[in-house]
């Protein structure tokens, strides 16, 4: 006795608890695409003629976000360019890069690859060691800087990230536990950019559960790796919060959905970080002080602020690849 799809009666591949229905492969894929479509519309994420830069890590979320955005591109009239950053973290980075290349090829999307070692002469682990900062903190800052630099270079209208509902619900909770309200202000579906300095970010998977993102990528046969970064702390508070939240969701389906929708509605009530938005004195991109954190960190770690070097590398790369959305 196998459960049947609520829409067409074909064998079900999943049970969507908060909708209390079973879905087959085809209708499950549509279910996730509908959620992405609704998020694009509800939160005004894209416009006709836009160029969207999609950050692709090689993992399931970026496979899902790129896959869904490609499917919806004709309907909304935007073009897509993908970006993969090779962080230089050994075998993990090698496999991630290969998955990103395969994914873009599958979907017919032009791919920009920024290899950190080639661009600035150091990998993430090296940068962390030399600057004596935690690896994950350095990595997050570098990824934000590089994705923005590429987005500005290709004059993208938006940078798409793969954060899913589970991620956002948990970042929200964790920040709230510390009363870091400024951090919560950055968790909205869409952020505004500043011409020439920063490109606004969108989160098309805002209302897609982590399990749904996985199943979507899997059912569509999209290329991605399961491996996690070796630096991930399996006992982190984020992981514990995700597990606890899912235990609650199992008993009270829809809790995560309510959390992210509620957050999107009230996002403007959260205080923005102090310091404002300025142009880095050295590289010209977004900074909260005189000098941006990327230029500050590389200065300290490598003896030279690498912002301008990175921007030049990106400019050459984009020109060579003849990147158009």
């Amino acid at each position, binding site marked *: 006795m196998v459960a049947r799809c609520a829409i067409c009666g074909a064998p079900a591949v999943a049970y969507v608890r908060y909708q209390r229905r*079973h879905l087959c492969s085809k209708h499950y894929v549509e279910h996730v695409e509908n959620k992405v479509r609704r998020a694009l519309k509800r939160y005004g994420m894209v416009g006709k003629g836009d160029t969207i830069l999609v950050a692709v890590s090689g*993992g399931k979320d970026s496979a899902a976000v790129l896959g869904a955005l490609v499917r919806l591109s004709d309907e909304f009239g935007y073009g897509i360019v993908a970006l993969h950053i090779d962080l230089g973290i050994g075998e993990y980075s090698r496999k991630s890069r290969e998955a990103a290349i395969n994914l873009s090829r599958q979907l017919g999307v032009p791919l920009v690859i920024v290899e950190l070692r080639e661009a600035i002469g150091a990998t993430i682990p090296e940068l962390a060691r030399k600057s004596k900062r935690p690896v994950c903190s350095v990595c997050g800052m570098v990824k934000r800087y590089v994705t923005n630099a590429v987005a500005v270079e290709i004059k993208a209208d938006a940078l798409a990230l793969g954060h899913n509902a589970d991620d956002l619900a948990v970042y929200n909770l964790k920040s709230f536990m510390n009363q870091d309200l400024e951090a919560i202000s950055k968790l909205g579906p869409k952020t505004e950019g500043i011409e020439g300095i920063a490109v606004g970010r969108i989160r098309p998977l805002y209302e897609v559960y*982590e399990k749904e993102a*996985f199943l979507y990528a*899997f059912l569509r046969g999209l290329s991605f790796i*399961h491996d996690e970064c070796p630096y991930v702390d399996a006992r982190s508070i984020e992981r514990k919060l995700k597990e606890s939240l*899912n235990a609650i969701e199992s008993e009270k389906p829809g809790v995560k959905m309510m959390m992210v929708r509620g957050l999107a509605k009230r996002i403007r009530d959260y205080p923005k970080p102090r310091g404002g938005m300025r142009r880095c004195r050295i590289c010209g991109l977004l900074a909260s002080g005189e000098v941006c954190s990327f230029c500050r960190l590389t200065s300290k770690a490598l003896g030279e602020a690498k912002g301008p070097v990175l921007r030049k590398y990106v400019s050459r790369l984009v020109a060579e690849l003849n990147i158009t959305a």
Partner: protein
Amino acid sequence: MSIKVKLIPDNVVVEIDADRIRGRDILSKLGLDPESAVVIADGKPIPEDGYVGSGSEVVVVRVLSGG
């Protein structure tokens, strides 16, 4: 009879003593929640109330990422 279950991304194989077992119960034996993991039998995902027999190749994927 037993059912071999491969756990990803941990890459370990666990043996479950059963002829037939529900997806939800496989997860429960592994200490996993249906919202955090997916059961894949012979290459196809199954809903948590779906059944797996002893002939099937079973993979359980933990979908939660770290941070």
